[in-house]
């Protein structure tokens, strides 16, 4: 029996850790002005007053609050890959990370509906399977409603 590879989805390589214990998005922090960037800053610091080109890779907060949310009732067109035989609607949330001042969009884990979400709700980052094919499980970050009692990032 062969073990199937688990790898970041095409385009998202280096965007998150695969640390099962404490998964996190990997952002950049400008070494000059200190601003944060996600997912990347290929052409230098986006702060127009800065001009910095050196960045430190940082783990972004694993917890945030919902800025807004919706769902995908219809199957999105390619290059979206339908992970199951038939399209199952899924939620999408844009989540605000307080420390970094960023809002990051992502799918919400399966089984959550819009009725389970509200603006301002606490969310937790997880690494999940975007889709599987013969070669690998293609991984992506997703948001999951956080246990309100759960600790800080």
């Amino acid at each position, binding site marked *: 029996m062969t073990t199937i590879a688990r790898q970041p*989805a*095409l*385009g*998202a390589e280096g965007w998150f850790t695969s640390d099962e214990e404490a998964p996190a998005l990997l952002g950049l922090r*400008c070494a000059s*002005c*200190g*601003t*944060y*960037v*996600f*997912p990347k800053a290929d052409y230098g610091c*986006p*702060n*127009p*007053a800065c001009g910095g080109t050196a960045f430190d890779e940082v783990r972004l907060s694993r917890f945030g609050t919902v*800025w*807004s*949310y*919706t*769902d*995908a*009732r*219809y199957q*999105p*067109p*390619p*290059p*979206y*890959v339908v992970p199951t035989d038939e399209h199952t609607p*899924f939620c*999408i949330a*844009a989540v605000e990370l307080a*420390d*970094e*001042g*960023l*809002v*990051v*969009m*992502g*799918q919400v884990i399966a089984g959550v509906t*819009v009725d389970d979400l*509200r*603006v*301002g709700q606490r969310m937790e980052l997880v690494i999940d399977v*975007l889709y599987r094919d013969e070669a690998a499980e293609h991984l*992506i970050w997703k948001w999951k409603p956080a246990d309100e009692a759960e600790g800080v990032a």
Partner: protein
Amino acid sequence: MSANDVAVLGVGMHPWGKWGRNFVEYGVAAARDALRDAGIAWTDVQFVSGADTMRNGYPGYVSGATFAQAMGWTGARVASSYAACASGVTALEAARTRILAGLCDVALVVGADTTPKGFLAPNAGDRPTDPDWLRFRLVGATNPTYFALAARRRMDLYGATAEDFAKVKVKNAGNGLANPNARFQKAVTVHDVLASPMVADPLHLLEICATADGGAAVVLTSMEFAQRHAGTAGSPVRVAAVSTVTPTYPNTVIDLPDMATDSTAVVARADQTFKQSIAHAAYEEAGIGPDELSLAEVYDLSTALELDWYEDIGLCKQGEAERLLNDGDTQMGGRIPVNPSGGLACFGEAVPAQAIAQICEVTWQLRGQATGRQVEGATAGITANQGLFGHGSAVLLRR
């Protein structure tokens, strides 16, 4: 009259629909219509400014030279612009600035497109460095996803209801009944809207802009040319301001095609969002405020986005748009009718033509020629739109 005014001497359109023919045909028809309306010959045009077609989010076919050749080469200068949904105004701005620089007197601005069915989606093939490809692949985020994020915020922050959103569609559908250029000329009820399939909660199918084929054109001239040409026919509609602003860092509202915003950790968020800055720049340039408007044509990519525009163009304060709608202020006969043309709700989107179509409608309104949907005594109107990749546009027109 300000020294920076230019004249809208003629406007023209090819009706919106799903005709499935070449975009050049719609553009040429609209251009000839605008030239006829202006009462000038094609050979009088010194500058042709085209808005490029849109293919999967990116520029498609060259427009300026294509229309010039189709109408018969005259040696006129040409330019082609691409700014997604704002392309038409970018093309208009190229013409306006050339006129104001004294480099020409007569310009023709044209945009037309033919569009595929269904969700707008990126080109085929793997392009993992393209943000427009990444948002579909990694998140499954379609255009309605972004529209719905904005809609849901209105509900959770301001208490907007599904009925409020549906009423925007009902209003615009009613306005479009009298517009021969609209693709959809059919009245709908709140029930019809809410009974249509949910696409991206809370938005239903009838609340999301369709795609369409269409063409629109404007003949823009110097004020001096217009006065000489028009003689005693009265003062022409004037372009008092054009805004083609881009966001300022940090852009804090998630927008197509991005998956994340800029950071507010080091540079604090500005007083205005990007969308608020679009019309604001036009008001500043024209020295006209929202209180002086007779009407507005705004980009209702969704019902809820029209409500966002009420606030973003300064018709009311943040969170008050639903009240403005429910009080009837934005209906025909109200204080400030919005989308008397029927808006995107009745047109669907023919991307490079759409911002020009907004200008055509305001021009007809200011001339008193909007038969069946006329805002009585209209003296000033604004257009506003926003497209992907940080493009916004607003045009202030006055009589």
